[in-house]
Structure formats: structure tokens, C-alpha cells
């Protein structure tokens, strides 16, 4: 499949910066897909978006849009020539124009008699028909965002870029707007790149996630791949709560404090210590007088409690239990693997392979 947008070894380092903001980035966006650029602040994700839009010029590398060169070897196509829609974090609606005129501004290349129809279609797509004559300051935050999206989608660009589209909305609104946005993008069949620092958002909306850190691409893949098979410790920790437990090869199995695991495939080195990635749904615990862990902290979260358990080795791991299974701080518990699927193990920063717990145990609480 032909990529809609492709970046090859793109680097951007402003004169004032001590290191590259975007460092030799390779990226491709395919038709109709939603790609999320995920990363902490300073990871270069917004700069990458601006490079694709033409609002910044790369220092080296190539950017092609729909097969045509947008930036390469000293030449850069200006933003107005690129046919890329963009939605800014502050929506950037023209305050002196009505909603209709804002959208019409994007349709200047279309024949006049078509413009009115397209404006109405765009408004219908985002669910705002009837609000065409309002001015931006008369709309709520959520409505303003939808106008910004309608305006970007009206000229039917091959790709639309969104910079932190949900950060200005309150939490209650976010889930709703998120699934709406996905629906709108699917209906319009437009490929999209969404920038966010929130991994939960990325997991919910993305077809693929590109994880960026300090200008470098750490991993790109489906949300499931990034969550369950992270390739670096950074990726593992960023995608969700992550704990690491030491494990050593002993008597034919990978042994760790929570139980034994069987490696999938061969272990590269039988003598070193590995770290098993544990998320809280991979383990379970129950009261036990001679257990292997003590509860050191408990936080109420509504449907469940969040517990922090200290193992004999001194390491702290995180676990959750339903709200009706109450444990007290200081209680002695037995904690072990509960996952029946492979868990990733690491050596140093990088993932080396996966291993399956040999005796997973879920406790049947009465």
C-alpha cells in the first residue's frame, strides 16, 4: 500500500537547541489509518507534526506527501501548497468570522456554487448543523473543536494532523469526544496523525502508535503490541503501570520471587539476571500468614483499591483488587503470577524475549 505521508531520516535541530528535537525519524502513514504520535513533552512529536504541515523546515531528510516531495535537500513546499489539514491545540478559529465563513475559508479552491453544499456537509459530519451563523466565542470548547475539525476536513485533504486535540476538554467530555472523532475520521475516510502525551488516549483511538522519546522513535506498532510487547523499558513504563521483577535461570526455569516461568525460545545468556515486566493484571494475591509480601500502601479508586506490596527482596510492586476484597496496610500476603499469556523480560534497556508463568494462580475469593 502506498503511504500517504512518509518521512525518511528527518532531522530538525534549531540553532538554539543543544540536541536534535527530531532525530533521523522514519515514519509512514497509510491511507485511512489513525496514527498516534505518543511521547512525553520534549519528545519531538509536535515538531514532527509541524514539519509535516510545512510550518517548520527539516534540516535534513525527506518528507513526501501523496508520493510528491514536500521537503528535501534544501527545498520545502510552503504550507499552503501541501493540502494537509491541521487542527491546533487552541483550535485557532478566526474570531471575526462565523462558523460558516471559517469553513468556507478552507474551500477557496472549490467553485463558488459548491462551497455552500460542502460547508453544510462538513457541519453535518461533525454534528453541528444549524450553528453555522454563530461566532466562535458563542460556542463551547467542544463545539469549537468540532468546527476546527470540520474546517480541516472540508477540502477533503488526504491527511489531517491534530495537535493534542483532547487536552483542552474536561475529563468527562474526553471519552465521548474521542469516540466521536474516531467515527468522524472513519466516515471521512481520512488518514490522521494525532499527537498526544496521554497513553490511555493513544490506546483508545490509534490504529498504530509511534512512541517518541527525545526525538527518537522507540517503537511503532498496534496499541496491543506496544502495551503487551514493548521493546524498551521506557516503552513499557510509558504505556502503563510497569513493575520489573528480577529473574535468574535455575534448574531448568526462569525463577523469580513471584514464581517460575518457561522462556519462549532460547535464552541468549543463561547466567545473567533478567527483569520480568509485570503489570498489575498479571499477578494476584491473597492473605497468608507466611506469605512472600507485605502490603505497604492502599489507595481507594472507586471500583477497586490500588495496593503497593513489598517483596522480600525489598522491591515494591503494584496490584489491584476489587473494592469488596479489602486488605489492610501491614497485612501479610502471598503474591504470585496469574497471567496465562507470555510476559516480556528485559536485560538492561531492551526486551530480550518472552516467558510464560509455569503455575499461574488466580485466587478464588469467596
Amino acid at each position: 500500500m502506498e503511504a500517504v505521508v512518509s518521512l525518511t531520516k528527518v532531522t530538525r535541530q534549531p540553532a538554539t537547541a543543544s540536541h536534535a528535537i527530531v532525530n533521523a525519524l522514519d515514519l509512514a502513514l497509510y491511507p485511512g489509518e489513525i496514527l498516534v504520535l505518543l511521547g512525553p513533552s520534549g519528545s519531538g512529536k509536535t515538531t514532527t507534526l509541524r514539519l509535516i504541515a510545512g510550518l517548520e523546515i527539516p534540516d535534513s531528510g525527506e518528507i513526501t506527501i501523496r508520493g510528491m516531495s514536500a521537503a528535501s535537500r534544501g527545498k520545502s513546499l510552503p504550507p499552503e501548497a501541501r493540502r494537509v489539514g491541521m487542527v491546533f491545540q487552541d483550535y485557532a478559529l478566526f474570531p471575526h468570522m462565523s462558523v460558516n465563513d471559517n469553513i468556507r475559508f478552507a474551500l477557496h479552491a472549490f467553485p463558488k456554487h459548491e462551497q455552500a453544499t460542502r460547508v453544510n456537509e462538513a457541519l453535518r459530519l461533525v454534528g453541528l448543523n444549524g450553528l453555522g451563523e454563530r461566532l466562535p466565542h458563542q460556542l463551547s470548547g467542544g463545539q469549537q473543536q468540532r468546527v476546527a475539525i470540520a474546517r480541516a476536513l472540508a477540502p477533503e485533504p488526504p491527511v489531517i494532523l491534530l495537535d493534542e486535540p483532547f487536552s483542552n476538554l474536561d475529563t468527562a467530555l474526553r471519552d465521548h469526544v474521542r469516540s466521536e472523532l474516531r467515527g468522524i475520521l472513519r466516515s471521512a475516510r481520512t488518514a490522521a496523525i494525532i499527537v498526544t502525551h496521554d497513553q490511555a488516549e493513544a490506546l483508545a483511538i490509534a490504529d498504530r502508535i509511534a512512541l517518541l522519546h527525545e526525538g527518537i522513535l522507540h517503537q511503532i506498532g498496534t496499541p496491543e503490541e506496544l502495551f503487551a510487547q514493548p521493546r524498551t523499558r521506557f516503552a513499557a513504563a510509558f504505556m502503563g503501570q510497569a513493575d520489573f521483577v528480577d529473574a535468574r535461570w535455575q534448574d531448568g526455569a526462569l525463577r523469580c520471587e513471584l514464581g517460575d516461568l518457561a522462556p519462549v525460545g532460547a535464552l541468549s545468556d543463561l547466567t545473567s539476571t533478567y527483569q520480568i515486566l509485570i503489570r498489575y493484571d498479571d499477578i494476584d494475591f491473597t492473605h497468608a500468614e507466611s506469605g512472600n509480601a507485605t502490603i505497604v500502601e492502599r489507595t481507594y479508586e472507586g471500583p477497586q483499591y490500588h495496593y503497593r506490596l513489598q517483596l522480600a527482596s525489598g522491591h515494591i510492586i503494584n496490584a489491584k483488587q476489587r473494592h469488596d476484597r479489602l486488605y489492610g496496610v501491614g497485612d501479610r500476603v502471598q503474591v504470585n503470577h496469574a497471567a496465562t499469556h507470555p510476559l516480556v523480560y528485559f536485560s538492561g534497556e531492551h526486551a530480550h524475549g518472552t516467558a510464560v508463568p509455569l503455575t499461574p494462580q488466580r485466587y478464588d475469593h469467596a
Partner: protein
Amino acid sequence: MRIDSLQQLTGGTRRPPSLVWVFAIGVAVVTLIPAIYTVIRALGASGTSVLPPWPLFLQLVTNTVLLAVASAILSGVIGVTQALLIERSQLWGRTVWRIVAALPLAIPPYVLSICMLALLRPRGLVERWLVERELVAFGDIPFAAIFGLPGSTIVLAFCLSPYIYLPVAAVLRQGSNHLSEIAQISGASTWYRLRHVTLPLIAPAAGGGMLLVMLYALADFGVPALLRLPTFSTAIYGRFTGQIDREGAALLSLPLIVATLGLIVLEEWLAGRGGAQINRSWRPRLVRQLGWWQAGAQLLLGTLSVIALVAPLGTLLYWSWLPLSPSEQASLIAWPKLISIGANNIAFVALVATLTTVLAITPALLLRRGGKIGVVVARLSQAGYALPGVVVALSIVLLVNQGAVWLAGGLVPLVLAYIIRFLPQAVQSLDAAFEQIAPSIEEVGRSLGQSALRVLYRIVMPLAAPGLRASWALLFLSMLKELPATLLLRPAGFDTLAVRIWMPASDGFYTAAAAPALLLIVGALVPVALVLRNQYR
């Protein structure tokens, strides 16, 4: 491989379109040539006989510098006090006081000088009134003290206090400052908070305003001339008209140019050092309860406005009703003729102000979006900052004499002088107006496929319109009040209200100056209203 660095130096992706560059460079060239030419002529002046004798030169320096500094300080005190009382205390009649504090903009300093002279000079209205009631004898009270530095300082300080009041009040209006609240919770007294929190907050705005006052005072001609204080401006004017010593005038211009440049650099440096913290979320102001001090505040503000507004306006109105002696009648102009002069004056100034605003658009755009080269071009167009009115007139006359005869036609030299003199002010305020627009608005316009030029005129200009109007209003006010360049460059038969005020007043016929002065103040009220509307939007 680095992208062409010329593109980066001219602003990168925010670079304004080529058309803007062409216009801006054109404007810069036009404003720069007279300035450069004056300096060349000055440096080429031969012989020390052209310079005034050393003691006189020293006196000029002392007077000019002292006038500038003292006016700025007194003006600062007045403006800041007004701003604090009006914006940060529970003052009664706040809306009225806001207008009153800005009104001195409508009164030219030379008009205030005339009124002050009429009232307070020896054998002036006040002394004569006192003597008639046998309260004092002639010569008992040293009225002569108003001449020279004291009187000039007071006049300039009161007339120019809005330059400080307006920006400081704008800062104080932003709302409660977190630092001030924290200080209050920690138990700091009002005076402590004032000194350590509020004053540093307003320092950039007040400092900027005081520098503007200093620039104005350095260049002012009318006030020192009327109040008999020899300064560089009066000396240059004298050489120009009295002895027709053009080279000498050019030479005297050099120190003024240097001083003005120094002040401009200082202003840039101050502006760059981090402005006040603006509180984004609105919170009610931390206002000081006044209690018994309310009376004191009202009295203080009342006194200030009496000096700056009531006294001059009262005097002017009084004169308008006064029966006149035959000699005074001779220098009087009939009302119909005066109104026609006034209407022409206002129309002329409105046109030139519009022209200057339009010309200032392209340099203002380049200032922030044109990269390093853009800044240079924009600053060059502000060369006129360094030339006081008298010097601008001088440089144009020098150029005309050198053969640029086509310039001599009618109103052209005068229009040119106004443009050179006031373009920098326009560029500065337009820049402030453009800065209000978020960069993302322009970026989104371009990402929607419109060229930079179309985004400029369909998005940026409409959004900057309120700021453009306020900038025009300030230009209008400055040009209406302008005196020295108008006196020197106007073609025969062309009169302005300022000239009609000056001519009789400089000969001592103050009453004849009353009617044109009133007319000018009335004409200035509309722009002042525009400025106030922009301030309190």
C-alpha cells in the same frame, strides 16, 4: 544539509511575502535619507566659529538634560500615583477619573505654557487679581520663578503624564497578582507590598513611559521657547530662522541625535527584560480600602486635574469672553476663518495620519516575522525617532537646498516631515497590535491553502483593526499638536491651529491664542476618546 540560511535570517516559515519587503525597504529608505544627510552636513561643517561658545554650549547641555530627566521623573510620579489610585483602590467616581487622567493628551504643552504664563507671570492675571484686592504688592511673590527650568518641567510633566498613566493602568488592570496576595497572607503591610510587589510589577511599563517622556522633552520646542529656557531645540530653531546658519543648526543636532539614540537603545533593553506577569484567569482586583483616605485621594486627583486641565481650560474660556484692546483685536482672527483653518488642519492631519499608518504596516510586520534582517529594516524606518521635529525640518530643508527641488513643492516637505517624525511611533503601536494575534491563527490560515499575503489581509488586518484605530488616534493627536516642523516647513498661506496659537503667543498676545487653542482641544477630543476606548475594551 542545512536549508538556505537566508530563508532563516528572513524569518523562516513566518516570513512575510516579498511585496511586504519591497514596501518596507522603500519606507526605510525614505525616512533614512534626511537623517543621514543631516549627519553628513554636520560632520562636514567647518570651523569652530560655527559652534556656540563653550559656556553657552554647556548651558544648553545642562538645560536640555535636566529638563528631560526632571520632566520624566515628575511625570512618572504623577502618572503612577494616578494609576495606583484609580486602578487599585476603592476610589469613588473611578470612571470619571479614568477619563480625566487621559485628557491631558488633548492639550498641547505649549498651550499649557501659555495659560501658565498668563496666570502666573509677573503682572499676570493672578498677581494683578491679588494686587487689586490689596493682598500683596507687585513683586512680593516671586512669580518670575516660573520661567526657565521649574515652569518648563511642571508643564511637560503634567501634559505628558498620560504616557505613563495609560500603560501602568493597563498593567494594574490585569487583575490580582498572585504575588501580592501571597504577600498579604504572609502579613506584609500595604507599603511593603507596594514597594516590593506592585512597583516592580509596573516598573517596565512606567520605565517605558518615562523614556518616552524624556524623548519628547529632549525634542520639545514650544515649551522651552515660551518659558525662556535655552535648549538644543530652541538653539537649532534660532540658528535656522534668525541667523540662517544651517551648518550650525546641523552641528547642534548631533548631540540631540546621539542622546535620542541612547534613549532608544535603553528603551529596547528595558523592553526585552521580561515584562509583567499577566494573570490569565480573571480574578477580582486586590483593591485597597480607602476609608478616611478617600477624601485625600479625591483631593489629590482633583488638584492634579486642576493644574493640568481646569486652569488652562478655564483661562482659555475666560479669554474667549474677554473684551479686547485694539492691539489685541488686530492679531485676532474672525471665527469663521478660524473654523475654516481648523477644519483644513483636521482634514490634513487625518489624511497624513492615515498615510503614515498605512506606511507603518509593512515595517511593523517585518519587526517580528522577518527574522534578523527584518528587524534591521524595521528599525531603519524608525530613524526618525532620533530626530526631533526641529531637526527633521532642518534635514528636509538641507536636502531641498541641495537640489532635491522637486521636494519643495507645496505641502510635500511638511508631509514628509510628519511621516519621518511620527512613523516610528506608528510602527511601535502597530507592532503591539499585531502581537495580540496568536501565531496559530496565521498558521492555520496557511495550512488551509491561502497564501501568506491573503492570510495577512483577510485574517491579520481585520483582527488588528482595533489596535490600528488606536494607533491612528495617537498619530492624529501628535500631528495636530506638532509645532516646530510646521512652523519651518509650511508653504505660504498654509495655517494650522498650532501655528495660529504660537504666532500671537510668542509676541505676548495671549488672548488671541485662546480661540485656536480651544478649537484644537475640541478637535483632539475624538482621538482621545478612541484611545480610551481601546484602553478599556
